[in-house]
Each structure stands twice: as structure tokens, then as C-alpha cells.
């Protein structure tokens, strides 16, 4: 059970970039790495004082998945840490809408299969130096199928990005898959929330009622949670213009330090078009 090393080399503008994926040997040295990752940018044009979208593009072998920021019942959130050169700053990572995976034991996880882009804007200085140096990234993930493999990579992207790393269409698709942020007008439902954790109780039930002008064909809910709150069960039922979502909550951590709210994504699907809306739910009963 020794660790194995999956090596790869990417050539970007004449610079050899070693891409190392450390993994446990469970899949055997004969298996190809289930996940490959590279850094890409939206544009080669660096506008002084502007920002350029940069992200880690994951290619995931069939049957495998990696994890969303809340991995669900098991798993590990994928991590992308961008380190831009001096004078530039990277924003918070933007996560596209996840998918739900349910395994044989009934355990639920949230993540991505086939391919995903985890990206953010990098703010540029004014003026942009002629040779600003590379954007570096430390990326790590857990990939699971029947078994799980940890992977990590240290990546570099030269600035301005070389043509092979400029993928405007990929970023366009990524933007279409980002949820509408909290507080933005335009959610197609009215929300009512009932229940929650009562004082002293470690578990509770929350019921969401969503009233639609035009109900979508499918509604999903993805809870975030964090280290103070765990969502054990989500049950969604739509009848006519009303959707009822029941959520079982479980308080985690020190008894005196309870979460007061739960960020969730409400995701609708219509004819293969998925849209997501960020919502923050109150979880203290009566609040």
C-alpha cells in the first residue's frame, strides 16, 4: 500500500511544467490517473486595472467524480489555491452548480463528473508589467468511483497566457453554470421557511416552501453546511406551483457555538438547462 506517483508534463510557452499527482496505490500503478488538471485563462489580453478569469480545468475519467465545496456525507472538498504574482490578487473561488451522487449504501455526495472548471477573477495592477511572472496554483482533490484516490498538482500559468491556455468558450460555459449570487433579484420563486433547531436540541427539521409562477420540471437543493451544521437528508416534492423541501439538520461542534444560518443552492432544471440560486436559510427555530 505504498503511495504512487502519477507524473505528467505540460508544455506552456516552452516552460516544462511538472504535474504531479500523488495517489494511494489502491488503484494500482496500471490504472491511468482518473483526474487531470490544467490552468487556463479567459483571455490573453491583460488590461491594466482590469481583471482576468483564471481557473483549474479538471478532466475526470468516466465513472469518477470529484467534490463540491460541501462534499456531502463523505469525500473531500476540491481545493484550488491561486497565488498570482506580486501586485495582483485573486478573488474567491467560484463553484459551478454541482451534481448529486448517491452510492450503494445510500450515502449522498455532491460534486462533478466528466469535466469542471473552478475559477475566479485575478485583479491586475496598473500598469501591467511586461513580465509579471507566472500565476501559481496548488490544487488538490479526492476522486472516487468504487474506490477513492487523492490527487494534488502544482501548476503554473505564464502571463500573458499563451494561446494554448486561453479558453474563452470554456469560461463562457462556466459562467452559465454559476449560481445567481445571494441578494441578487431574479429568483423565480417565493420562499417560506418553517422550523429549525430549537434551543438545546442537536437535531431539527427545516421545511422550505417555494412558490413558483412557472414551476420547473425538476428542483434540487444543495446545502453547504460547514463545520457547525450537517444536513443529513433532503427530500424534495413538487405539486403544481408549490415545492416542499424537507431538510434534516444536525448541529456540530461545541454546544455553545451553534450555526444560525445555512447557505444552500436551489437548482432548477428545464430541458437540460440548470439554473442555481444562492439562498441563506435561518436555522434557529422561531427566528
Amino acid at each position: 500500500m505504498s503511495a504512487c506517483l502519477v507524473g505528467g508534463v505540460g508544455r506552456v510557452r516552452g516552460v516544462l511544467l511538472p504535474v504531479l499527482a500523488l495517489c494511494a496505490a489502491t488503484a494500482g500503478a496500471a490504472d491511468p490517473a482518473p483526474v487531470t488538471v490544467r490552468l487556463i485563462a479567459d483571455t490573453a489580453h491583460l488590461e491594466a486595472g482590469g481583471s482576468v478569469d483564471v481557473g483549474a480545468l479538471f478532466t475526470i475519467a468516466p465513472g469518477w467524480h470529484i467534490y463540491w465545496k460541501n462534499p456531502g456525507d463523505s469525500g473531500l472538498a476540491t481545493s484550488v489555491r491561486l497565488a498570482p504574482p506580486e501586485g495582483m490578487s485573486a478573488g474567491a473561488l467560484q463553484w459551478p452548480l454541482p451534481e448529486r451522487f448517491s452510492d450503494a449504501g445510500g450515502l449522498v455526495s455532491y460534486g462533478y463528473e466528466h469535466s469542471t472548471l473552478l475559477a475566479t477573477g485575478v485583479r491586475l495592477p496598473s500598469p501591467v508589467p511586461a513580465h509579471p511572472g507566472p500565476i501559481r496554483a496548488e490544487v488538490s482533490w479526492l476522486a472516487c468511483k468504487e474506490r477513492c484516490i487523492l490527487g494534488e498538482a502544482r501548476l503554473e500559468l505564464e502571463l500573458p497566457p499563451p494561446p494554448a491556455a486561453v479558453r474563452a468558450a470554456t469560461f463562457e460555459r462556466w459562467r452559465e453554470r454559476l449560481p445567481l449570487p445571494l441578494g441578487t433579484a431574479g429568483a423565480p420563486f417565493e420562499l417560506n421557511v418553517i422550523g429549525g433547531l430549537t434551543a438545546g436540541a442537536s437535531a431539527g427539521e427545516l421545511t422550505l416552501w417555494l412558490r413558483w409562477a412557472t414551476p420547473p420540471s425538476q428542483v434540487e437543493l444543495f446545502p453547504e453546511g460547514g463545520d457547525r451544521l450537517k444536513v443529513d437528508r433532503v427530500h424534495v416534492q413538487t405539486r403544481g406551483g408549490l415545492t416542499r423541501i424537507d431538510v434534516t439538520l444536525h448541529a456540530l461542534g461545541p454546544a455553545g457555538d451553534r450555526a444560525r444560518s445555512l447557505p444552500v443552492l436551489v437548482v432548477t432544471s428545464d430541458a437540460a438547462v440548470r439554473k442555481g440560486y444562492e439562498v441563506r436559510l435561518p436555522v434557529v427555530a422561531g427566528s
Partner: protein
Amino acid sequence: MRRMNRIVATAGMVMAIVAPGMGVAAGVGDKAPDFTLTDQDGNTVTLSEVPGVRVLEWTNPDCPFVQRHTREGTMKELAARYATEGVTWLTINSTHYMNRETDREWRSEHHLMAPILGDFDGKVGHAYGAETTPHMFIVAADGTIVYEGAIDDDPRGAEPAAQRTNYVARALDEVLDGKTVTTPETRPYGCSVKYEK
């Protein structure tokens, strides 16, 4: 954990009162579901017959999180440290495709002291709601579950061991001092338990 329903344990038999379509699992404050399982050498172990404080550790030798903690000696060192205070460490393997032989090899290869109990049909795992490997439970001397969740606060293993908070060690210290466990539940991390289909 999913504490929608109660587990009733009688005379070594686990009986669950099940509401349709709902998960059934014991959680903190509940009586620990009793079980009788066979270890890697064929010895039977019944939870209720093991005196004192007991730690249950869900394992899967194929899981990279288990492999890392085994390399680092996390569980082995804790088990040895608290054995001197009368704590019994029981490792449970609910991985459906494994067997006593694989557990024996894993245990001997890594010189583990705790028995590995085979739960390959996953019944005990489901009774506790074990979700990940590792997933930890502490059962107090009176048979109540007083902690469940992660082994520590560092899922990625990015911090040196000395800088991590080991939830199980902290909870054991509190239990052995007769105190209430201040952090009775944390989010377990790791691979999903590979239950039988």
C-alpha cells in the same frame, strides 16, 4: 447523525424501529447499539461485554485517508496511550468486498494492536450511521454514545500532527475526567463506507 428514530438493543440483538424511507442510526446521547462481530483471527467480540470506555473506528484499508492515518500512526498511538487508562479500541471494517484475511494482512503489515472486527454485510455500520472511513464513535462505560465524527480537524493532513486538534483524544480526556464532552459531534471526513449493495 440521523437520529430520526431510536435504536433498541436487547440481548445482543439489534432491533430497529423503522419509519418507511428513513435512515436509522444511533447518535450522541443514544445507547450504543450492541453487536457481536468476529475479528481477523476468528475471535468474537460483543460490545456490551467489553468493560469501560470504548472507541469504535470505522476503517477500510483501501481508503487513502485510512492509509495516511496508518502511516502517521494516528489511531495506533491513541489506542496505546488510552489503553493504559482502560479504554478499549475496536476497529470495524464494513467494506463489502473485504474479508477476515484482508484484515489480518493489513493489521499485521502495520503492527496494529486493536482487533479489526468484520462487518462486511454493513449491519453494524448502518446501525451507527457510519458514513466515512475513518468515522469515530466513543461509547462511555454506561453504554451511551458520547462522541461521533472525525478523528481530527485536518481532513487534508496538511498540518503537522502537533498542530491538529484531535477530537477523539480531547473527548476521551473529558470522559475519563468525568466531564461532559464539549464537542460531542463533528463532521466526519474520508471515503464513503463501501457498503454492500
